[in-house]
């Protein structure tokens, strides 16, 4: 195995995916550079900014701190997997409507964090929202609009369920 690239079989956004990578390549690099999924962004590349966040087996992770080879047999959700064709996911729509997006660099991570949060806690308090989003840095909008967007999304998703 010395010096060999590794074949990884995984599921990305519900579809089987297979790629060949070096063990040292992060999941973020594999998503962006091998699979062409550029929604996850590279910010700090050390786990502080959350721009690269994706959902791995129902858990929110920083894809810069996961090796691509670790994705073998796992399920990954990226921002590309949220909209149904041209129909935005309610969380995406809430971010647009609340003006919680400016340059957009942190947005994929924040939206996936919101999805992971609402899948676990459908009606989070403001404190819970802020705790869940603390690993995501936004330098444009300030966080209040993001919190409002999460609340709107939570309300809409609750309505859909009811």
């Amino acid at each position: 195995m010395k010096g060999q690239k590794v074949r990884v079989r995984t599921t990305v956004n519900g579809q089987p995916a297979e790629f060949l990578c070096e063990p040292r390549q992060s999941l973020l690099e594999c998503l962006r550079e091998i699979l062409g999924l550029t929604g996850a962004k590279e910010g700090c590349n050390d786990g502080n900014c959350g721009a690269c966040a994706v959902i791995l087996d129902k858990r929110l992770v920083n894809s810069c701190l996961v090796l691509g080879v670790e994705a073998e047999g796992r399920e990954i959700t990226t921002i590309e997997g949220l909209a149904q064709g041209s129909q935005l996911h309610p969380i995406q729509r809430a971010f647009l409507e609340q003006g919680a997006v400016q340059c957009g660099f942190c947005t994929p991570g924040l939206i996936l964090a919101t999805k992971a949060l609402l899948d676990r806690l459908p009606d989070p308090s403001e404190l819970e929202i802020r705790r869940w989003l603390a690993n995501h840095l936004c330098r444009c909008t300030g966080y209040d609009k993001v919190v409002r967007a999460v609340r709107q999304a939570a309300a809409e998703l609750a309505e859909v369920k009811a």
Partner: protein
Amino acid sequence: MKWFDYAAPQSLPEALELLARPGARPLAGGTDLLVQMRAGQRQAELLVDLKRIPELNELQCDPGRGLRLGAAVPCCRIYEDAELRRRWPALAEVAEMIGGVPIQSRASLGGNLCNAAPSADSVPVLIVLRAACRLVGPSGERRLPAEDFCTGPGQTVLGPGELLVGFDLPPPEAHSGAAYLRFTPRNEMDIAVAGAAAAVGLRDGVIAWARIALAAVAPTPLLVREAGEFLSGKPANSENLQAAAELARSAARPITDLRGTAEHRRHLVGVLTRRALEKAVARAREVRA
């Protein structure tokens, strides 16, 4: 990052065989290791991923035996486990304190200990809860108390090819409680300027025993035995708790760095130890089934 190979063994014997190879290193959550390797601070020829090994993933609360916790169990599983939170609330709380949510999906207490940062939040908690570390290596198995694991910043007792498999925590006694408090400028996603963990057991209205351990004020997480021993046999009043906090303050050996001055850290140790003791005593007084 320099090239390395990767293996994900499914069993402990397989992992030990891989870890015996030159340049092999264990990988749990990777939230410290991958950052350090990218920065050139640590090197590896081979990363041995521990997350597919059953023993490293165990989380079992047993009324008689206590808690058996695999070294690679991520923080999120620790704080989401209702039984663990009920019996070891200080442990659940500290798992919720390390990094942010995406870090907690991956970071483990085994990794926090093996990374051996003086500021590691979970280590003082493991120490006051009397966690025993289970190690296996080429020369067999051994157990040692959490307070004896770190030997310096980034340094541990682990020998070549030796692996931390997990922790055993004794069941909490009736009328005992524990707490950990830290000081950080930011509420989340920050590293302790100083931290203090306390555990106490009450009997007939007095403190039967107490343990106090500190973070970020010495080259390793620090058990302050004399502060705990001072409290033994004394009433849990503010005067005694304050005196124990003073002993912890004197035992701290802080340095000045970008996160704080030695003077500020020493002050914090006094305040945090007193408050952690108060919280531990309050918990010990709660009636728990």
